[in-house]
C-alpha cells in the first residue's frame, strides 16, 4: 500500500511538471499548426538561463522565473520573426526541417559555449526530502507541481475569458474563419509562439532543481512532450495537463510493476490506443488531428 501510494504521488507530481512543458508545445501546435522540433532545445536554453542565474546571481530557481520567463518570451518573438513566420505558410516539411535545423544549431551552440558538462543547482533545504506518512518527496518536486497546477488553471481562465484567449481558441478551430471574423491572425501567431516559449521558460525553472542541465537535455523530455500533446488533443490545455499526469503515473506504475526498461513502451502503447480510439486525443477539438492534411 505504501509502495503504491509512493508511486502514484511521485508519478502525479512529475506528470504535472511534464504537463507544463507540454502546454507550451500544444499551444503552438494548436494555433500555428507547426511542429516545433526545437521545443526541447528551448527547454535546454531555459534551464541554462535558470542555472546561470542561480549560480551567478545566487537567487533560487523560482526567483529566476522573473527573468527567465520574459527572456524566453523575447526569444520566442525572435525565433518567430527569423524562422517560423517565414515557414508557417509553406508545406509542413519546410517548418519541420527549419525547426529541426534550429534544434541542431542550438544543441551544438550549447555544446561549444557551455561544453557537455552537467550543470546543477544546489538543492533547497539541503536536499532533505519532505515526508508525508510513508511517502517521501523532494521539496522541489512538490513546489514544481503546485506551480504547474496554478499556472495551468490561470491559463485556462485566461483562455476562456480574455479576448486573446477566445481568439486563440477560434484560430485553433478554424484559422480562415477566425481571420474573416477580424482576428489578426499573424499577430496571434507571434503572441502564441512567444507565449508558448515563455511557458517553456517556466518549465525550465521548475526542472532545473530536479534535473541536470546539459546540451542534449531537451531530447530526454521532448518525446514525452509530443506524446502528451497528441494524447491530450492538439491545442487543448486541459488535455495536455491530464495527458501529462497520465504519462507520469503510467511511467511510474509500469516501471515498478512490469519493468523499468519498458516504461517508455507503455506510454507509447497508451498513446497508440488513444490514437486508434480517439484520433483527436482525449480533449481535442474535432479536426485537431487534421494538421497537415488540409494543407
Amino acid at each position: 500500500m505504501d509502495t503504491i501510494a509512493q508511486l502514484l504521488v511521485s508519478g502525479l507530481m512529475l506528470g504535472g511538471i511534464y504537463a507544463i512543458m507540454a502546454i507550451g508545445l500544444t499551444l503552438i501546435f494548436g494555433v500555428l499548426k507547426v511542429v516545433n522540433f526545437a521545443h526541447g532545445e528551448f527547454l535546454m536554453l531555459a534551464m541554462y538561463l535558470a542555472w546561470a542565474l542561480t549560480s551567478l546571481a545566487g537567487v533560487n530557481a523560482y526567483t529566476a522565473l522573473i527573468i527567465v520567463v520574459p527572456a524566453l518570451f523575447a526569444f520566442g518573438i525572435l525565433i518567430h520573426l527569423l524562422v517560423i513566420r517565414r515557414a508557417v505558410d509553406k508545406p509542413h516539411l519546410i517548418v519541420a526541417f527549419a525547426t529541426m535545423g534550429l534544434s541542431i544549431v542550438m544543441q551544438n551552440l550549447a555544446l561549444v559555449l557551455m561544453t557537455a558538462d552537467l550543470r546543477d543547482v544546489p538543492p533547497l533545504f539541503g536536499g532533505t526530502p519532505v515526508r508525508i506518512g510513508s511517502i517521501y518527496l523532494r521539496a522541489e518536486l512538490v513546489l514544481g507541481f503546485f506551480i504547474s497546477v496554478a499556472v495551468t488553471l490561470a491559463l485556462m481562465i485566461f483562455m476562456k475569458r480574455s479576448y486573446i484567449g477566445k481568439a486563440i481558441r477560434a484560430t485553433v478551430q478554424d484559422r480562415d474563419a477566425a481571420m474573416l471574423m477580424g482576428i489578426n491572425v499573424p499577430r496571434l501567431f507571434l503572441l502564441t509562439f512567444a507565449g508558448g516559449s515563455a511557458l517553456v521558460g517556466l518549465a525550465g525553472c521548475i526542472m532545473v532543481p530536479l534535473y541536470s542541465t546539459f546540451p542534449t537535455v531537451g531530447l530526454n523530455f521532448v518525446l514525452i512532450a509530443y506524446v502528451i500533446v497528441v494524447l491530450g488533443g492538439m491545442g487543448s490545455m486541459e488535455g495536455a495537463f491530464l495527458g501529462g499526469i497520465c504519462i507520469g503515473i503510467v511511467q511510474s506504475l509500469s516501471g515498478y510493476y512490469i519493468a523499468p526498461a519498458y516504461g517508455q513502451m507503455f506510454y507509447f502503447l497508451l498513446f497508440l490506443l488513444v490514437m486508434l480510439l480517439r484520433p483527436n486525443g482525449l480533449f481535442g477539438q474535432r479536426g485537431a488531428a487534421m494538421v497537415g492534411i488540409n494543407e
Partner: protein
Amino acid sequence: MGNRLNVFIGALLCSFLLIGGVALQLRPAAAAEDLKLGVLLPFTGPWAKNGNESYVAMEIARDMINEAGGIAGRKVSFVRGDAPDPSAGKSEAERIISQEHVSLITGTYASPLGIAISAEAERRGVIHWETIASADIITKRGYKHVFQVGPAASRYGIAAIDFTNEELAKRLNKKLADLRIALLWENRAFGTAVGGGVRARAEQLGGQLIYDEGYDQFMTDMTPLVQKLKDVKPDVLLVISFINDTVLLHRKAKELNFEVPVVIGVSAGHSVPDLKDSLGTAVNGIFVSDLPALVNPKALRPEVEAAAVEFNKRYESIQHRVPAGHAVASFAALWPLFKEVLPKAKSFEPEDIRAAALSMDLPEGSLINGSGLKFSNFDLPHDPKDAGQNIRSAIGVWQWQQLGARQVWPAKLATNPIVMVPLPPWSQR
C-alpha cells in the same frame, strides 16, 4: 621532318615527366610528410563530454611524441571525425579512410561506436586501434585489423564481483554467498556486456544476485527503480550507468531515503569527475570498477611513470581537473602505439603495423594506467575466436574519497585504503 618533331616533343615530354617524377619522389624526403592518423570520437551528441576529454588526452600524446622528434622523423597529425552515433561514425570513418588515406584509425570511447567503426576499418583493411570502447564483441568477429587496448566490458563486471568477494564481504561480516547483491544495468551494449560479466563471475564464485534489472538510460523518472531496490534491501548495489542517469538515481535514492551499505558503479557514469558537482559530498564512499586513472607509481616502469607525470601535468593545465579513467586510457593506448608499435613497424602500411602490434609483449606497468600490452590472435585457449584483445589491460576499483578518485584495488595499483564501508545514513553523507 614531322616525325622528327614528334620524337623531339615526345622526348621533351618524357624528360619533363621524369624530372617531375623524381621531384615528386624527393618531396616527402625533403619535408617529411606528417603521419596522419584518423581519430573518431563523439565530439557532439550525448557522449560529447567524455569524447572531448578523451581527445584532449590524445592530443597530449601527439604533442609529446612530436616534441620528441615524432616517429621515424615524421610528425604525427590527427584527422578528426565526429562520431555522435554509430551511423555517423561509420560514414566519417569511411570518409577519412578513403579521402585521407590513413593506415590507422583510433578512438572511439563508446561501445556502439567502437563496434560500428571497427567494422568499417576491417572492411577497408585499415588498422582500428580502440582506446576505450569495451564491448566484448569488438574482438570476437574474426577481424584481423582490430586492436582493443582497454579491457573488455565483461572484465569490468568480473572486477566488481572479485572486489566484492575479496574486500567487501569481510567488511560486511558476510560470506559472498550470503551477500544480497543487486545489479542495475542500462540496457544497451555497454550495460549488457558488463552485466554478463557480473552474472557469470557471481555464479562462478557462488554469489547470488537477488535483483537483476535493465533500464533505459534516458529514463526521466527513477522512482520505480529505487522503490524496487528499497523492497529487496541489498547489501551491495552494482550499477552500470551513464552520467545523467547516475545523477538521477542517486538523487532519487536520497529523496526516497533508500539506504544501502555499498554502492559499486561501473565506469562510465560513476567515473565522470562532474559527479561530485551534481551529488556533492554524497558521492564519497561510492566505489567504481573502472580503468585505473592515477595508480601507484611503484607499479609503473620508470620511463612510463615519467610519461604519466608529464601527461597529468599537461592535462590538468588544460582541463583544470585531474584526468578521469577514460582520459588516462586514451593517452595510455596511444603512447605505446607511438613509442613501441609504430617505430617497430617495417612501414606504416596496415599489414606491417599489424605485425608489429602482434609482436608486442610488454609486461604490466608498461602503460600509464598499469596495463601491459599483449594481444590475442585466435590463440586464447578458452576463447579461440578472440583476436586483438589486450590480455594485459589493467582493471581495478577506485573509491570516491574527499570528492576525488582514489585507487583502492587491486593492492598492487592501490594508492589509498578502503574507507566508508558500510556507507553512513543519508543524513550524514
